[in-house]
């Protein structure tokens, strides 16, 4: 588990960002120097439609305290409808894992466009705040923390 200087727990959040909108939005937050919490680890994917629900489960297993998948707004998908396809899967997945008993808020989804640097930062702030409230992930977690670049596996 990661602790900050003050010995407080720092959540680790995996964010799958689509290359065309959300990743660009994240870059824009950077060029605009909009500050947000440093808890997110971004994984760039071509499209939110590329995110297999299994990958989200693997993140939780790996010990991610939160998972965010962000794509283009409906209608804006660079690949026409990848985000629409993703939306259905995510709707089902989110309900399923919350039904299982995983806390609401561990896994979140957002639409952030290339022009929404501010929104990206807001989303990260919201997700981080929520995950902080929830505390360290425990459910479905198999590997807690990889110290110094190594750890047990999945």
């Amino acid at each position, binding site marked *: 588990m990661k602790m900050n200087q003050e010995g407080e727990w720092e959540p680790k959040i995996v964010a799958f960002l689509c290359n065309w909108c959300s990743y660009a939005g994240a870059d824009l*937050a950077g060029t605009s120097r*909009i500050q947000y919490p440093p808890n997110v680890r971004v994984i760039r994917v*071509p499209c939110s439609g590329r995110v297999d629900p299994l990958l989200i489960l693997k993140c939780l297993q*790996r010990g991610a305290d939160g998972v965010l998948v962000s794509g283009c707004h409906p209608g*804006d998908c660079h*690949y026409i409808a990848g985000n629409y*396809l993703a939306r259905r899967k995510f709707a089902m997945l989110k309900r399923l894992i919350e039904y299982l008993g995983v806390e609401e808020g561990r896994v979140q989804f957002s639409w952030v466009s290339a022009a929404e640097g501010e929104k990206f930062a807001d989303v990260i702030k919201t997700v981080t705040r929520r995950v902080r409230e929830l505390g360290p992930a425990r459910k479905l977690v198999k*590997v807690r923390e990889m110290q110094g670049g190594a750890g047990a596996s999945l």
Partner: protein
Amino acid sequence: MTLDNRDNMDNDVGAKSVGAVLVVGGGIGGMQAALDLANSGFKVYMVEAKPAIGGAMAQLDKTFPTNDCSMCIMSPKLVECGRHLNIEVIPNSEVTGLDGSPGDFTVTVKTRARYIDPHRCTGCGLCAEHCPVSAARDAFNAGLSSRPSVYIDYPQAVPLAYTIDRETCIGCGLCENICMAGAVRYDDAASTRELNVGAIILALGFEPYDPGQMAEYGYGRYPNVVTSVEFERILSASGPFEGRVLRPSDGDIPRKIAFIQCVGSRDRSCGNEYCSSVCCMYASKEAVIAKEHAPGVEPTIFYMDMRSYGKGFDSYIERAKSEYGVRYIRTRVADISEVPETNNLIVSYEDEVGRVVTEEFDLVVLSVGLEPPKSAAGLARALGIELDEYGFARTGTFDPVETSRPGVFVCGAMQGPKDIPETVTQASGAAGAAAALLASARGSLVREKTYPPEKDLRGKGPRIGVFVCHCGINIGGVVDVPAVVEYARTLPHVVYAERNLYTCSQDTQKRIQEKIQEHGLTRVVVASCTPRTHEPLFQETIREAGLNHYLFAMANIRDQCSWVHMHEPELATEKAKDLVRMAVARAALLEPLERLPIPVKHSALIIGGGLAGMTAALDVARQGFEVHLVEREGELGGHLNRIYFTLKGEDVQERLRDLIRRIDGEPLIHVYPGCVVTEIAGYVGNFKSKIAPVGGGIEAEVEHGVVIVATGAGEFKPDKYLYGEDPRVITQSELEELLATGKIQPGSRAASTGTGRTFVMIQCVGSREGERNYCSRICCSEAVKNALRLKAADPEANIYVLYRDIRTYGEREVYFQRARAAGVVFIRYPEDEPPVVEPVAGPEVEQGGKGKPVGELRVVVRDTLLGSKVAIPADMVVLAAAIVPNDSNRELAQMLKVPLDDNGFFLEAHMKLRPVDFATEGVFLAGLAHAPKSIDETVAQAHAAAARACTVLSLEEIRSDGIKSEVNKARCSGCGMCVDVCQYKAIELDFKERVAKINAALCKGCGACAATCRCGAITLKGFTDEEILAEVNAI
């Protein structure tokens, strides 16, 4: 097509056509022109006066309105120019003579002595370290720092070679002794060479106005009065203060900073009547960036009119005000004096109601205007081209990139003050014009890029090299880069790690290649900025070293780390390590991917037959490619049909007729009037589209390699000021039509109403308000144009222009001044209190009946100068109606899979450097569909879109991306789910084998199929489950 039937060309070429172009000037414009030409089959010579290319943009810290790091977005182009096989950069040189005719010029180029052999110099910098001279003026830092006699302008310089400044050199010989490359040449001498080229593009850029001439601002006398260029260097991470906002006198962080606008612009006294077009924005940007670098700073901008007329500019200003607290004061600063004890400055100005105010500032930044380069006059003489009265190259509204001499083109600020995207647009446009001229010689002088064979990595485990970028202090100022490098060395498979000041610089590219060989690297990881801009550069670098493009991974430790966690350096460093670990884990699994060649259909589909579409169509055809030009209306011309004259007085309708005549005479152009595009399928190089008559009918199917979107825009139908209710309230374009067709006779009409000859023009109707928070850009010039026309017809006419800011940018300003001189009254109204147009009740009103003009019209406006309301009786009220995006944009955008911006205009790939491209390859953009713009800007953009399109059309085949889905037959159950999810119809089911098959040429690499396949039979190469999971596991 042969040369002979190009009878309609403006620049006829002689019998011989040389497939080479000379580009004079290596700034962003010159680079863009050079790259477009070199990428469409022409040899380019780039002559640059300075020792390195890069121009003014290299000196900038950030660019508006996206706040992109200037160097970051430019450096890929810089590097590409530097290493392009068909661009020869000739630095330290000038053009001294020109002979010949279009298509076959001989140019004389004189190269000054550099005293360093650029081919031998490695840029290592040992000479500069040892040079005993240290006090030479560093021009790159605008003189804010000093440098040795042997120097290089900036770390990313191309060519990366030092220069000895013999004026300050003491000739001690230390450098010669220390240089291990043996590059020092004390005996170097100037040389002259002759180049044979078919066309010339001038891209000399501008020079900043020297405010030393203006005694009232104390520049040169007061140390804390600096120019905006100097301040840009102060802000720059690579500048004299490493990005810290310090003032020159004492190195203190200034609290109050004043920006004085229009220094050397809009000022008859210094001879520069024109507006420099960019200062309002750059000052706002500098204020915002200063505030970011030093949050305690309180910037104030003293301005006359806020000229934030470009795409996204007004919202930038809004953010500067509301989020950064930048204070804007509308005034002209009269005088600056110094407080000797503190070197603080007292700024005196009149506020809007005429009170004299004085205010003390810690630092004053003079927003200096843009002047033509001093060398322009000499060059013009040498080349025999005309300059205008201010020294800019003279061009016509319809020929914005053509100088007075055929075969010689111009782009960028040399043609008139302009910002980067306008420059880039013109540069592409000039390149297109040159390419059209020389189309028959395409490919005659170029060399093909050959890569070394890819290394055979079979059986070799991953050996990863990690390169961590400081990005000046952009990363290094927050993230502990040495710690990240140390950490990277401990990661599995990492055999080498190092850090670079700028990993993107050309010398680092060479270094990466050396390290690949030295350490036998098989994968490269760069931790720097965003892969969205820089991945191609690094991919090219490793490919040149024999590694497949795709054996590369990036960790975005700047845009998504150091820049967004500026106040948490430890956590940012932790995150950077994590990101590097993830990238290394991904890199270890990467496999070489093949870029499939896709053949190109050599024709273009141009949607929209207005000025942009027609101009682009002619260009593409002149470059020798077929064009399908689709126009929704029954006739060509679009918006232009309703424009009659230009600000400069040109006859628009005559030009329109000429254009249509040329289109008709061009056998390669097929016009589809009264038609729309109903379907677009395919991809760059291989589109297949359907064109159908409006309202239905027989569809035509065309194949084409590119698409140019030139669908224009609409005019806002005003919903207030009695428009549509009272016939005396009309729009500017209606007024223009009345004027041009003689239906309105100034004076006579006034007499008929008996109420005087009064016209009230109201600006910003539908622009800069409500959801349309953008400026329509052309309305101010239109108002000035029509006002002048009215005044010319009837000097006694009373004309009032009610405005919020007059935005007659560039040389349009001169006409604004003329209008004022002619007696047109300009009244500024406050944003929150627009004028009111009302009928004045008269005896006739009762009998009047609905819709009939009754009584007189009255316009009531709050005059901000007087501070009180004024009522103006008006014979006619003329509304500057906004330019609004077409409703059909959304449908077309979805058909083309390209985005729209917030306002509904098409959104280009990059606001600064890819102004006519879309992110979707093979689709380009021109004209009002992009944003409001003037005729000359539209023409330039259309030239540019055509030029960019021809970079595709001139290829025999395109190398497609290697990111494709692939089916593992053994795992496939043949369920067909992938077929259903694929939006590109790239997958079909083989019923015999019961497996899915993917057409790689149609596959876009989105991965929807891979994420849907339950059997795990589909792999998206480059984003495999294993690769993504490796990243997940490495969090």
